[in-house]
């Protein structure tokens, strides 16, 4: 697995936790937008936004991870990823930086109360642990 460590990740925070997404999977990062709610939808789908004339859904990682309700601030961002030929926005509390990990550990069964299946691994930096999201699993619709 040479080179895995050199892969770049977008590291962001939700609540107290740090997460990462492989940079290749991130389409863009935008500021918080006005969200149009969609009634009768999955609980984690917050609604849709107008991304330059395209309507894309945004989901709440907080809702998905059963954390407290979203509170939007100036730091709130939407990470737009590609999933099965669609763009989907993921609301995060803040985006830290683009980073690499010197080591990636396989995910445990549960990561702080969150299903381990959501992660491809746990990335280690000098100071913290970052859960690397398995986008397809996170966005999987049942």
């Amino acid at each position, binding site marked *: 697995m040479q080179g895995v460590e050199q892969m770049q990740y977008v590291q962001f925070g939700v609540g107290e936790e740090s997460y990462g997404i492989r940079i290749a999977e991130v389409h863009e990062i935008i500021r918080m937008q*006005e969200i*149009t*709610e*969609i*009634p*009768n*939808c999955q609980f984690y*789908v917050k609604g*849709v*936004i*107008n991304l*330059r*004339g*395209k*309507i*894309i*859904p945004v989901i709440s990682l907080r809702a998905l991870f059963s954390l407290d309700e979203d509170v939007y601030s100036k730091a709130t961002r939407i990470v737009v990823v590609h*999933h*099965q030929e*669609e763009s*989907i926005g993921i609301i995060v509390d803040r985006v830290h930086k683009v980073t690499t990990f010197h080591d990636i550990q396989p995910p445990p069964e549960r990561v702080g109360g969150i299903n381990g299946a959501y992660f491809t691994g746990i990335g280690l930096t000098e100071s913290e642990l970052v859960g690397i999201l398995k986008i397809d699993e996170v*966005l999987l*619709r049942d």
Partner: protein
Amino acid sequence: MFDNSEFRQVFLEELEEQIMTMEEEILSLEKQGSHSEGIQRLFRAAHTIKGSSAAMGYMELKQLTHEWEHLLDMLRNEELAMSRELTNLFFQCLDFIKDLQNSIIHEELLPDPSAVIKELERFSKANTESVAAAKEAAGDALPEEAEQVLREFIHNGQTVYRVTVKLTEDCMMKLARISIIDISLRAFGEVLWNEPNMKLVQDDQDIHAVRWLIATQEVEPLVLEQAVAGLMDVHSVRVEAMQPSQPEAETAAALEQEQDNADMLPGFAGGAAEEAADKPQQSKASMKQQTIRVNVERLENVLDLLGELVIDQTRLKQAIQTLHQAHGYSETMDDLGEISDHLSRLIGSLQENVLKVRMLPIEQLFSRFPRMVRDLAQTLNKNVDLQMVGGDTELDRTLIEEVGDPMIHLIRNAVDHGIEMPEERQKSGKPEQGIVRISAAHEDNQVVVVVEDDGGGIDTNKLRKSAVAKGVITAEEAALLDEHKALRLIFHPGFSTASQLSDVSGRGVGMDIVRTDIERLGGIIDIDTTVGVGTKFTIRLPLTLAITTGLLVKASDQTFILPMSAVVEIIRVDTSTLKMIKGSPVIKIRNQIVPFVWLHEMFGYSRTEGGSEKIPVVMIGRAEQRLAIAVDQLLGNQEVVIKTLGSYVGKVDGISGATILGNGRIALILEIGGLMKKASGIS
């Protein structure tokens, strides 16, 4: 392997086209019997695929089409005859090609075609032998020219004999021998026709049997036979009195076709000649219209951009209005207004034209049905004639895609439940062959698609009973339903009229799904039936799904759009006039009781009470149903570009899509069927 992704798309497009041609041709071969034009087209399609798949490196596909081509070649050289078994094998081949196509699309490992290839090989071997043997044994049918002469003479009351002579193996000078036989035969009557024609034969090596047609008077067949049998080198003689083999009218048509085929024959020779055969078709096509192929995605992008342009235009208009209010009249202001007006006209016609580009003939969809009906009829042992009219009717390509499933369901139903078994049809005095008829046509601003059959029809009394038994309605309600409403019971969820669920059309979905699908497209489905005569489903669809006129309303600070086509009227209602029936509010409008709901509550939003007593209410309608929806504010109507919420969000009850408004905000477009359902539990 070299990177062929660029060619892959072109290859796949071509493959798709050839597959469609093949399916069409096999079906027509099955229906009309063997005709060399069809076989030739099939051959050409197989040949094309063989060439391109070889170039692309799809060896499995190449091998299969190669072997098929070989068999087709035998067919067109009449070394082999079409049969039902062969038709089925052809379909099997085609299905395998489709499998291969699928694997290529999904970039999977290609399945191994050797089983089908073996089957093709088996056929070509077994049948060459048997056809040759059959030819030998039967003495063979006469070619058309002979038949025609024969018919003429018999028509004039003459007796015609066929004399078949086999020469011995060691006959040295066959042609000379045949001439002697010919001369002796001419002593008995007039030789109408003979084969082989001695004037045309150069090399006599291959001649074993010779045939004559002789018109005679008062000669016994035995006399003829003895006269010939006595000659040298004659192995055997057979003399038969002849009758024409086909009724006259039919053969005349066959003759015409034969002639056409004869014209086609040079095309068989090879590459260059094949192209020559292609030519007349091509020139016909280019005369009709010139077209180019466009990637769908590009077209969608253009439409998206146009959608943004429409939105910006609306914003511009609003901005001008605001400016106007703030700064009053000025010449520049006037200019700006004019430019804006012009822009909106331009955008309007641009939009219209782009939408036209998206229109496709419904033929594309129709072409899927013949095969389906054929297979289904065969499985069910039914005899069904599928008739299709109006394939050139154009509608939006997304609509064509979407309306496919419900139509397939209706057609399956027609074959499975509609058309009776042949014996049953015979008993009721109908022709054994049932008819399923599909038609499409434009009517005003709609497309009307009809699926009808001449089957047994639907008994509304049975429907009533069944609906009561299933608890869909009560017995009292059932008794009150008029014929049409009773018939519409078929569209209720969980309702199926088939006394036994067959595995073919069961598929776990009922007519309610069909209705929901159609209504999701902004369409209406209706049914008409007569017991013993048949059933007719009529589907009305909008021309396009991309754009619609909507009524903008506000509820709980969100803007929603109601499709104008469903809005029956707009009224103001004093909330104090609301009545309650079974705990649900209703309003009475012109003696009609209409269920009443607040849009907010439907979607679980809170409603700010108070304010004015009179609230705006939008009455929506679908078929005979009405629903009064209370909102906070009416914002007027406008054209909206419909966008889907995407497959990630999926289907949401009561919402069909969204649009981007002039201010850049998103408004959800409401779906009438879903609202009705939400309002009443079951509609």
